């Protein structure tokens, strides 16, 4: 999956779970509590299914969830077998 394609997919998932947020530009989704823990886990379930990755509690940190780009970077890292 290309960078832009993956990013768009993630933005679509975010829109579905928590609509009405500017996901193209927001960099503080967790820091400003735009997405809460329920939304984070819904997102994880979708990401696991869509991209066939396994997300562990270690990956649940603001740095990975603060923006759509950070989410896509995490997915790419996990697909490559990283932590």
């Amino acid at each position, binding site marked *: 999956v290309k960078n832009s394609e993956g990013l768009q997919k993630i933005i679509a998932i975010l829109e579905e779970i928590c*609509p009405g947020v500017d996901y193209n530009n927001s960099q503080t989704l967790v820091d400003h*509590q735009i997405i*809460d*823990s*329920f939304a984070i*886990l*819904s997102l*994880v*379930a*979708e990401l*696991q299914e869509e991209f066939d990755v396994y*997300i*562990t*509690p*270690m990956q*649940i940190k603001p740095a990975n969830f603060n923006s759509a780009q950070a989410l896509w970077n995490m997915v790419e890292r996990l697909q490559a077998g990283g932590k």
Partner: protein
Amino acid sequence: MSFVSLKFVIFLLVAVIGFYSIPKRWQWAWLLAFSYVYYAAAGLKMVPFLLFSTLVSYSAGIWMDRIKNNQVEEDQIQRKKRYILLITLILNFGMLVVMKYTNFAVANLNFLFGSHFSFQALLLPLGISFYTFQSAGYIIDVYWEKFEAEKNFFRFALFVSFFPQLLQGPIGRFDKLAHQLYEEHSLDWSRMERSLQRILWGFFKKMVVADNAARFVDEVFARNNFPKYSGTFILVAILGYSIQLYGDFSGGMDIVKGVALLFGIELDENFKRPYFATSLADFWHRWHITLGTWMKDYVFYPISLSKTMNRFGKFTRKVFGKNIGRAIPIGLANLIVFFLVGVWHGANWKYIVYGLFHGSIIAISGMMMLTTRKWKSKLHIPDISISWRVFQIARTFLLVNISWYFDRADDLNHAFALLNKTVTDFHISDLWNGKFLLYGVTRITPEYYYVVLFACLTLFVVSYTQEKGIHLGERIRSKPIVLRFAIYLILLYALPALGTLSSSSGGFIYAQF
């Protein structure tokens, strides 16, 4: 040694003067010595429990790091580390469970099987719920390789035992707290003033707000007394309890934070104006924050992301469809977390009901999130509307107050009896017919209500300005020295003049957990 005692003031003075007088490299050791003296003063018998928890977590951390550095196979490393984690958690929480819940378990078994086992009431080491959680958080983080284990046993012992937070939190995280404890600190007068402000404000909340409110609350809620009072009294008492509990716990936290700051150490915030919360989930982002984040990071996420829950999630999505199916496992994990939050508060069914009450409402509202959003859009209710926000705050406050019945009552029956009386025996005229003046029983006079009202109003104004992003402390610090010290002196004089000195264990509600 209660914070509200001359003994503690002297202890603190010696600790602070010594801390800035000795060579800086020994400051952490000085804090360790004072932390153990403080804990030993509360009861020598409790020290071995603190040492046990420290030793177990310290050894496990070192062991895990050794395995990580000596083994080659990733699978083997993970398996061995998992065993160590499991053993450590069993030992740590096993101690907590035995000390805190054995009596409760025996009583319930006797009830279930009609047996008559008796069990000697065990000693409950003070602060055990806090330091066990702090140590357990550390060891899980080492397991997750968030940081390397602390090599120096005595430094680690300070992380577990740092005296200001030892008895009632906040539950600290190693990566945020430990380095501050080990760093060298120079005396900084502006920081000392900030500490003093925080301590004074904490004492105001504790002595003037909480302990005053407690006089009325304790009188009305007492098991032998409440039948003689109408539902109106009980309603006012529960509102009083919401003020008391907030003043007591958050005031205690202000003192804890202020005392830690005297040594240059910034502890995590445990409160963020909880009664301005717009939902119960928001309430837990503002009330006892460090317990909530601990539960979220070490219980909620690990359970929700476990392979079993993953499989269960796939099943529920297949059966109930994408949206509901996705929310069910999250709701279930949330219920487990709030069951544990309830149990954490104490070995009593009333706390379990308290936890599950919060947990089930949060789980249901989480599951209904999308439906609620649709309804709001159909009814054209904007998120930023002030009336909607006020409605949300009032609704949350009501729900929180219902849960306080379970927190405050002696047991479940008592809680239901109080709730029942509030609803079925409510007479609004009691508010102005003079019945509230309980002269004979607790010297509750018109002056008493003026003091409590003044204290609540002060608390509300300060909280409201903080909520609006105005830092009153900073503003006061920017004023001329005479004016600001006049404010501090007024606060200092207000404490004995308006406050009540709590007679019940001389201490704080949360220090009993």
